[in-house]
């Protein structure tokens, strides 16, 4: 996550990035609260098998995790592109809520009266694409970061890679979905310049949770669950849920200060 596109900063001044809100539909409003519960339930359900055999357990959990994240972004989040999705998009609108509303209006116009199902169908493709991007770009980067932070270099490759993939799926899928491949937005994301929202808060939470997850590893408690990388993944899940919650509510619109 520390090395993303540096160049490509457009010379023209951009409007300041605004926090992202979930879609103003009833299903989005509802599912955005159900989603973290589903995630935690999935993880809790899988936890014994992850502890027993981290590689098999994490690999088996990866697919339902991706499915949950796809469902979440498709139902709740504005997709990138069409000059709509990204809060840092090119539209002249600067007011967050107002802009969002207008964009949704545009979308409805564009889609005509095709109805919700079609809209969701149209969002599945970018959602799947963001899964692919997360898997191919974010996961290897996170794995490299894990190794740099002290994960074993010569052994446990599958463990580390799966751990990286889990964090990537949690943290990166929603972000890729809303920001696409907008270089400027991503530079802001890396520089911690984006305003905190549900999506960005989830990323910060997952990363901080994973960081804290390393704390119990050295303790001499002789517990099964202390094995690599169970605590890191657990920390990421918990951190993600907390970060999402705080980012969507209390800390919404705040910025990280150095």
């Amino acid at each position: 996550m520390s090395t993303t596109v540096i160049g490509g900063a457009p010379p023209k001044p951009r409007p300041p990035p605004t926090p992202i809100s979930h879609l103003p539909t009833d299903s989005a409003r509802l599912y955005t609260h159900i989603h973290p519960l589903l995630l935690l339930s999935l993880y809790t359900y899988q936890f014994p098998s992850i502890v027993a055999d981290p590689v098999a357990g994490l690999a088996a959990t990866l697919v339902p995790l991706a499915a949950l994240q796809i469902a979440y972004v498709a139902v709740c989040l504005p997709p990138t592109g069409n000059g709509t999705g990204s809060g840092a998009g090119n539209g002249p609108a600067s007011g967050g809520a107002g802009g969002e509303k207008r964009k949704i209006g545009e979308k409805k116009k564009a889609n005509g009266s095709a109805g919700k199902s079609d809209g969701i169908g149209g969002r599945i493709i970018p959602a799947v694409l963001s899964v692919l991007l997360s898997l191919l770009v974010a996961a290897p980067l996170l794995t490299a970061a894990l190794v740099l932070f002290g994960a074993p270099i010569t052994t446990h490759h599958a463990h580390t890679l799966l751990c990286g993939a889990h964090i990537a799926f949690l943290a990166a899928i929603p972000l890729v979905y809303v920001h696409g491949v907008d270089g400027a937005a991503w530079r802001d994301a890396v520089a911690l310049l984006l305003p905190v929202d549900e999506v960005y808060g989830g990323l910060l939470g997952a990363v901080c949770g994973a960081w804290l997850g390393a704390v119990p590893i050295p303790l001499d408690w002789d517990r099964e669950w202390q094995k690599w990388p169970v605590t890191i993944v657990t920390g990421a899940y918990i951190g993600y849920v907390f970060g999402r919650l705080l980012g969507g509510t209390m800390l919404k619109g705040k910025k990280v200060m150095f």
Partner: protein
Amino acid sequence: MDHGEPQPSFKGISAAYAKAKVEKEKQEAQALKSTSADAGEEANRAGEVHFKAAHGIVIAFFTWILILHILGIYLFTSGFLLTRLVLDHKSECASPPIDSPLSYISGSSEPGCWHPKTFDKAIVILVDALRYDFTIPFPADGADETAHQFHNAIPVLYETAVNQPNNAFLLPFIADPPTTTLQRLKGLTTGTLPTFIDAGSNFAGTAIEEDNLVAQLKNASKRIVHIGDDTWHALFPGYFEPNLTRPYDSFNVWDLHTVDNGVTEHVFPLMHPSNTSKWDVVIGHYLGVDHAGHRYGPDHPAMNAKLSQMDGVIRQMIEALDDNTLLVVMGDHGMDAKGDHGGESDDEIQAALWMYTKQPAFGRSSSDYIHPPATAKERPVAQIDLVPTLSLLLGMPIPFNNLGKPIEEAFIGASGDDYQNLAIVNRLTAAQIHRYQHEYALARGIEESTRMSSLALWTAAHAAWDMANTTAHQGHFQSVYSAFSAYQQETLSICRGLWARFDVPRMLNGVMILLSTLVVLAIYSRGTAGDQTELTPALLIHGGMGTIIGVLVGFGATFALTSFAKEHVLICAAVVGGMTGVSSAFWRIRSRLFLPFPTTIWGWMSVGFTLLLSIGFAANSFTIWEDEILLYFLCTFGVVAALSSFRQKAIADRALGCYHSILFIILTRMASLSRLCREEQMPYCKSTYYASANSSTSATWQLAIPYVVALLIPVFIRGYYEGTRSYQGSAIMWLNLALRFGLLLSAAFWTMDAADDGDWYPWLGETLKTSKIVVAIITFAISLGFGYSTFIWSKPLLEIENRAATSTSNVATNNGRTSITILGYANVHGSRYALLITVWYLAIALVQKPMGAGALALAMWQIFSLFEIIDTNKLSDSPIGPVILGLLGSFHFFKTGHQATLASIQWETAFIPLRTIRYPWSPLLVILNHFGAQILCAVAVPALVLWKQPPKKKGLLGDVAKAVGTHLLFYATINLATTMWAGHLRRHLMLYRIFSPRFMVGGAALLVVDLFCIFVAIAGTRISISSSAEVFGFPG
């Protein structure tokens, strides 16, 4: 790296240079001086005086801090690290400590050395953690508690003691804390008390070098067989019959049966009549009870099963025992309610001792004593008492350092009235104790007053002895027995006072001193506004005056407070005085003080890393894995630095910051591949520092590392200089030639060292040894001789270049046709000072093993990367730089093959440029090796605030003082934390292995870093800034 166009305005300077150019004068210093107005020169001279005075005061202030650190550490250590001198004396069979009574003269172990022996052979069974109350029946006279799983499970000991009092006895067996098996085995074989450091013993190994029972048996050509816990082999390597001995790993606490079944399997064949001639003493060490305790706790069916199993084993042994063999069953310690041990609670120290023989050899002095004591509080014997008892029973001399006394039941005879024998053995033992005490007092210089009471008892006992011999009455011998036994008791309690008692007031006062010094340092370096140099004089004068007054008052107080040691009172008074003085100074400048509370992410990180590390030292796991934690923190810093670099406005800053942050992370991770694992990290750690985990020589491929370093490091450093065109003047000569040559020589040294060690070229003989020493001396001469001279007399690394007018910004045009460029202007201070880092780098690199040279080279590279990170993120005022240097130094401490254990000290570095130990050089070399990484990072601290600063910037010295103060604050916090935890956990199971060594490393590192910060870093700052000031003038 190739950025660094100097931006600051320097009109005055460039004008001066323009003038100088006109006058064809290239010596810029001359030019500046010759063209300066008189007034300017006057101001400059005043500035110089002011600078030098301010510098001296800063040095004095930090020296005052150093003194406070020394006092605090000394006071704590003197209360905490109680030491006992290990005497090398061995008792000899032929020379009893006192002339024998009844003309018993043997001098041979066959009939018994000092006293006729009772048994030829012995089987000693150690049931680890056999607590006394496991062995006696429950309920003991009508107690209304319900029986636990551990009750009544091993009744055989009690039954035999009651039913056959002449063949067996059972007694409470009290351990001296710490109740860990290793310490207990030392006590059970040497008869001495455990202390923190057995001074004089071999630090590197665990083998017992003191006189002990096993060594005495070995000396007398007795064949000793050991079966069970392999701790014995660490303590007594090579003492046991190799073909009969069966060691088992004691590490796996979860395994209750492997060791026990192994012991049982191998011990009974030995007891078979056909095999009894093959050995003299068998030591069997069962671990199952201990492991059951650790795993399940005592009140668990597994414990019941285990004890029943032991009961069966002992019954079987009684069956198989022959007539002239003594059977001993004992516990080395007990266990607490959770089944753990190590501390000093009653449950942990109360073990059981049972002796059995088929001969009617034992007795009781009273018929009341036939029943073993109902609780461990009645008639207990000390574990050290086993040493003289077994020695005399087997006809061995009593080990020289023994402090125990013979057990009454074993010598009083079957009828229970042989007080003459009891008096004789007690007299022998007391005489040996007396001989030991005499030698100890000679070697250590114990005050006569502390021995007064015991000497009086000694004289009294002798008088009783003479009296009894003239009258030969049993009643008199009883009083002789009690007289000698009183002497032994008194001596033991004196020794316990000397060796085994923590002096808590001293420890507390030491911690208070360290804490208050920390507060002063924190306010000084992070809680004051403005230039540090303006505040230092007031602080120094008040603090210094306070200290002096404190000493005077304290001197008076020593007469009033006679219950405390003089130096204790004096130190406390001096510190209280100093603190009062400094507080008054802080009060006077209170308007410039603020709470040193972090406000930025960098401040939070600095505080967070330091505090997390400090809190972690309370847990043995975090202490063990400190190297990995440091890696984690350093990488975290690198990532945050990379993120922060993305936030920079200037594209150059952004790119450069990102590049160096990522480089910093990768270098950290590369360095982390060099590991020397401590025992506790096994099996999750693989040592790479040496050729293999069991070796302390480098692999052949590792010899290439220093050569690679010699080729690359000068190039990399040059890169950092060229970024600001500072690769000029002396830097070329030093970096390109001398440093490279010195590094090559140090690489050659290690190759020659390996050749010498491995005897690759036997025909070279002594030549190789001589030449490697010469090479080492030349390398030191290059570094500390030539290098330091270069650093002291070098001009600032500047060059003036004439060229046709171009559009570059840092030129002073002359009629628009030609221009002058001042090369190296952008980093005058940093590049000049950093020479000092490379000088010390060379000296430290020589004393590191090849793998360490690689790690240190990475450290060097990281340090320069850090300068760039700090500069591009504009953090020179932040605490993060000095704190990261502290983390980096601590990290590379591990990466240069060290651990916080005494065993990891690389003593052999004392011989790198020497043939024999020579003071003070040998200890200095070991320090340079041990704390090399911390020293390098400490020397680098001033460069954090000098790197790429404008030449005429004001208050640089104050910035350096602030940075150095922050750096010391890091080490002082770590030291305070490790000190507090070591004091708090002074009865912890892992005190000796983990907390105490970490405390010692923390204290030593603080003092070493103090010294280098003051006398190398701050002193070097003066040279560096003065040199730049000759060109640019002293900032007013």
